[in-house]
C-alpha cells in the first residue's frame, strides 16, 4: 500500500495565496467583495473544520477499516483504480450533496457552507465542524470501500475532489470555454448553486463534473439577466462561528421538542429543510412553485392587452 499524504495539507498554502490574490483583485476591480467579519467567520469555520476532522475523523476511519473486510472486490492500487475511484467518488459526492440539501439532518451540517452572503474563495473554506457526527461520510462513503477500493484511496480522491472545489468559489472568473462548461463544474455553475434566487434554488450539486446534474435533471445555467443573490433563504444575522455552526441544529431540536407526534418529529428531523406538518413554512419546492406561479401570473397580465388587441 502506498503511503498517501493528505493533499489538503499541501493545498492550504495555495488556498492562502489565492485568497490574498483574489482579495487584491477584488480591491482593484470591485468585481467581488470581501468584508472582514465575514472573511474571519469563513476562515475560522475552515480552521475549525480541520481541527474537528482530526478529532472526530477517526470515527469514519475506524468504520471504513472495519467494513473493508466485507468488500466485494480487491481492486488494488493500479493507476486506473485511482482514476476510476475519482470519477465514482464524484458521482457519490453528487448524491450526498443532493441529500445534504434535501434532508434537514444533513442540511443542518451543510448549511454552514452556504451561510455567507458573500461569494469568494474564503466562502469555500466556510465548512461545518460537526460533519463526522452527521454520519454523512459513513453512509455515502461506504459504497466505494464495499465495492473494493482501498479506504486510503477513497480518502485521497475525496480530498482531491474538495481541493478542486476550492477555486470555483469566485466571481472573478466569468463563464469559461463551452466544452469546459459542458463537462466540468465551473465558477459559473457553482455561483448558481450558492444563489437563493428561486430559479437557482437546489441546483448544480456537482463536485467536479457537472455531467451528473445534466444527467439527473438538476442543472441550471447562470443567466446574465438574473444575477445571483448569495446566502440562504433565511440569512444569518451573525458572524459568531459558534452560532453559525449550531443554528440549524438548534432549530431542529426546538422543532422536535415541539412536535406533537413521532411522525412530526421524524418530519422535522429527516424531512426537507422548511418542512412543517401544516405546510406553513417555505421549503425550496414551495418557494419555486410560488415563484413560478407569480411569473405565470405576470406573463398572463402582460399578454392580456396583446390578446385583447388581437381580438379587436
Amino acid at each position, binding site marked *: 500500500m502506498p503511503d498517501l499524504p493528505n493533499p489538503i*495539507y499541501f493545498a*492550504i498554502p495555495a488556498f*492562502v495565496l489565492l485568497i*490574498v490574490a483574489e*482579495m487584491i483583485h477584488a*480591491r482593484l476591480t*470591485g468585481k467581488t*467583495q*470581501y*468584508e*472582514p467579519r*465575514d472573511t*474571519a467567520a469563513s*476562515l*475560522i469555520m*475552515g*480552521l475549525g473544520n*480541520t481541527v474537528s476532522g*482530526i478529532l472526530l475523523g477517526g470515527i469514519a476511519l475506524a468504520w471504513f477499516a472495519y467494513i473493508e473486510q466485507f468488500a466485494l472486490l480487491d481492486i488494488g492500487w493500479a493507476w486506473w483504480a485511482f482514476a476510476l475511484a475519482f470519477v465514482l467518488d464524484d458521482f457519490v459526492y453528487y448524491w450526498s450533496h443532493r441529500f445534504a*440539501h*434535501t434532508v434537514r439532518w444533513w*442540511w443542518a451540517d451543510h*448549511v454552514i457552507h452556504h451561510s455567507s452572503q*458573500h461569494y469568494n474563495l*474564503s466562502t469555500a473554506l466556510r465548512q461545518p465542524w460537526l460533519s463526522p457526527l452527521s454520519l454523512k461520510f459513513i453512509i455515502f462513503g461506504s459504497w466505494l470501500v464495499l465495492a473494493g477500493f482501498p479506504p486510503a484511496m477513497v480518502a485521497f480522491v475525496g480530498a482531491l475532489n474538495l481541493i478542486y472545489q476550492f477555486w470555483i468559489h469566485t466571481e472573478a472568473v466569468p463563464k469559461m470555454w463551452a466544452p469546459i462548461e459542458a463537462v466540468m463544474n465551473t465558477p459559473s455553475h457553482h455561483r448558481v448553486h*450558492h*444563489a*437563493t434566487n*428561486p430559479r437557482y*434554488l437546489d441546483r448544480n450539486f456537482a463536485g467536479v463534473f457537472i455531467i451528473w446534474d445534466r444527467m439527473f435533471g438538476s442543472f441550471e445555467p447562470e443567466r446574465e439577466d438574473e444575477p445571483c*443573490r*448569495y*446566502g*440562504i*433563504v*433565511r*440569512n*444569518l*444575522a*451573525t*458572524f*459568531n462561528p459558534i*452560532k*453559525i455552526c449550531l*443554528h440549524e441544529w*438548534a432549530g431542529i431540536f426546538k422543532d422536535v421538542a415541539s412536535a406533537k407526534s413521532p411522525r412530526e418529529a421524524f418530519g422535522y428531523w429527516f424531512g*426537507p*429543510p*422548511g418542512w*412543517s406538518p401544516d405546510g*406553513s*413554512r*417555505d*421549503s*425550496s419546492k*414551495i*418557494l419555486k412553485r*410560488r*415563484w413560478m406561479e*407569480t411569473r405565470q401570473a405576470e406573463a398572463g397580465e402582460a399578454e392580456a392587452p396583446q390578446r385583447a388587441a388581437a381580438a379587436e
Partner: protein
Amino acid sequence: MNEILTLILVLGASAISVGLIVVLNVFLGGWTPARFAYAGEGVRRIEEGVLGFSASHDAVMGRGGRVVLALEQGGARLGVAATSGDRATVRALRPGEVRAVRLDGATLTLDLKDYTFGRVWLTLDDADTASVWAEHARAFVKTAPETARPETASHA
C-alpha cells in the same frame, strides 16, 4: 511524533494565516458598511428576500439607515431589514416570533425569537412614531394559532 509536530505546525500556521488575511482585508478596504438611503430601499430588500411579501405603505426607517420596518399588506407579517456588515438580513415576522417590545422615547427595541437575529433596535424621528410602531410590533408578540412557526428553507 513527527506527524503530530507537522500537524501542530500546519494548524498554527493556518491560524496565523487566518489572522493575517483578516488584517489584510481591513487594510485593503473596498467594502462599505451597508446603510439604507430611505425606507423604500429596505422594503425592496424585504420583498426581494421574502418571496410573496408585499409591503403596505406603512414603513419606517431608523436614524442612520440601519433598520427598516414594514407591515405587509393586510398586516399578516412584519417585515424587518437590518444591515449586517456590508449586507442586509431580512425577516418577515409572524405573530409569536417577537419575544418582547420595548420603547424608550423614540428608540424602539424588538427582541426576536431568532437564534441568530435576537434583537433589533432603531431610533425613530419622534416618540409618537416610535409608539405607533411599538403597537404594530406588539401585535406580533402574541402567538396566533398555526402561524407561530418561523420559516426555514433550503438554501441556496
